[in-house]
């Protein structure tokens, strides 16, 4: 998937959040504290780009959630469900 440099930066910041706490949902506040004030609008647009590309989804105004594609994009391997044993 093609990502803009801004989207790549924000995705890297999300990866840092995931490295801190390995869960899908994170506070938007925790992400935004990594944004320098002078680049805030640029990163906000990049965040919107990640939403549009379905790598993340908004849970509510304060929380976002990594989608499966988003987890893959930050390099988290998603275990595939084991096939059910076939009864003879």
């Amino acid at each position: 998937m093609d990502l803009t440099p801004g989207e790549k930066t924000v995705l890297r910041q999300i990866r840092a959040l995931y490295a801190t706490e390995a869960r899908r949902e994170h506070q938007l506040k925790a992400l935004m504290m990594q944004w320098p004030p002078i680049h805030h609008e640029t990163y906000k647009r990049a965040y919107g780009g990640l939403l549009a590309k379905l790598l993340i989804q908004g849970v509510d105004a304060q929380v976002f959630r990594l989608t499966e594609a988003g987890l893959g994009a930050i390099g988290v391997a998603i275990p595939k469900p084991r096939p059910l044993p076939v009864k003879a």
Partner: protein
Amino acid sequence: MAARPLRVFIADDNRDMVMLLGILFRSEGMVVRSTTRGTEVRSAVAEFRPDAVLLDIAMPDRSGLEVALELIRDYGERCPVLIAITAHSSDVARRLTAKSGFRHHVAKPYDPDALLKLVASVEPHDWRSLSIRST
């Protein structure tokens, strides 16, 4: 044997902030190195071997959280003391910096005397026989 001067590394994309902190710490006899680029911190720390690393959280090329995680990955429990400098003082922000490996969280605007006292309280880091983990 007299204690050696503390070695402090500062990373902040704001040049004025870097300059002011440099003046503050040098005035107390500390040895200071700095950068305005988050991407340079890892190699600079390996070379300079500081006792304390002050990291701005919101740097454009690499956030302070990312840099802290890199340093923790490199040095593990023997990482020099990491001090977060950020405009955010909420519980979320403090919890996040603590979980990222920062020992201290300093919210802007900060009190220079309190910051100086905090950095001066850092124990000199033992860099001998410390090898960086390969990544």
